[in-house]
């Protein structure tokens, strides 16, 4: 058996065993505007798997490897979409920001938001470092369970850090003339 046909056989076995998982993984990762690119992402993952098999790389945990490859390909696709120049020469990300600004955020509102950003950044620097990151992740939309996983901590500990951090942030903001409600 030639080296190439041996690689083809390994790839075939890998995809026979994990092809359905690969397909489901890509669909889960390609939500929203990436949905219409799911087939391209799946194809890209297959090509990357092919390259890995061809380079005789050891894949000890195929499911984890496929997940990571799919995740990487999906993020690559998102970044490509964001960077792709549109017909007018601007990027899609810029166009989206401009849409949002035009539809929802007035120049005054954008200026206020910028001012608030700087105030919050300064207030965050005043809270204990151990609570700063969990609070920022919380404010960026991560749940306490997700924060816990990312930090390698337990969920109750992450929740406690977020709760105390928010309390610190509230005090720091109040000292700067901003009342954080809730």
């Amino acid at each position, binding site marked *: 058996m030639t080296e190439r046909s041996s690689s083809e056989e390994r790839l075939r076995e890998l995809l026979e065993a994990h092809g359905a998982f690969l397909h489901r993984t890509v669909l889960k*990762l390609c*939500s929203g505007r990436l949905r219409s690119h799911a087939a391209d992402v799946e194809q890209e993952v297959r090509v990357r798997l092919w390259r890995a098999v061809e380079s005789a790389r050891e894949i000890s945990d195929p499911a*984890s490897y496929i997940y990571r490859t799919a*995740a990487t390909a999906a993020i690559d696709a998102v970044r490509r979409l964001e960077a792709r120049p549109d017909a007018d020469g601007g990027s899609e990300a810029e166009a989206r920001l401009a849409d949002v600004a035009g539809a929802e955020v007035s120049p005054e509102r*954008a200026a206020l938001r910028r001012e608030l950003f700087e105030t919050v950044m300064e207030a965050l620097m005043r809270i204990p470092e151990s609570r700063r990151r969990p609070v920022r992740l919380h404010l960026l939309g991560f749940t306490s369970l997700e924060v816990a996983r990312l930090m390698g901590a337990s969920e109750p500990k992450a929740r406690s850090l977020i709760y105390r951090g928010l309390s610190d942030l509230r005090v720091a903001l109040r000292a700067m003339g*901003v009342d954080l409600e809730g």
Partner: protein
Amino acid sequence: MKVDEREIAAALGAGSSAAGRAACPEPEALARLAAGELAEGGREELLTHVSSCAPCARELQALAPMASWLEAQRARRARPAVWRVALPLAASLLLALSGVLLLRSGPRTARPALRGPSRPAPRVVPGDGVSLPAAPEALSWPSSTEAVSYRVTLFHPDGTTLWQSPVSPIAEVRLPDDVKARLSGVVYWRYLSRSPADEASSPVFRFTVQR
């Protein structure tokens, strides 16, 4: 001034998005972070970036469901020893049984490596697996009442794209002469059906051009 968490989140998102992405980590690093595969030092460094970068935070959040799945898989693998013996034994018995059934059902053609999961294949022209004396003039497939457009992709056996058709409203695409001239040996292809609500990919089909 009174604000709530939502306004702070919007301000943080807008402020950190404006910084550009030159310093953002590689996608693979984010995937490893989500999968819990980074050592503490690397994790700390990445988290410092992610907690101040809204685009990276969004990308990482998109990976969260899969990270949960992987965690469940790892927990399953760590099940008690009795299962580690019993499950392979049961699997071996099933394999042996399926082997007997396969032998009884006669020889089968190996499924090409680049094909997706098994599902009922629609009837396409040229038929799946056929061998042709020359490149086909066109490819066609059953039209769907929900689809508003289609797009076809041809692949080399190693998975690289050979050609992609323009978007077409009908369930047929004619192959341009320069594409036909490049078709030789095994060619894989599939079509994408786009409806107002969704987009679906067909299974991968194959034909062989004998030159």
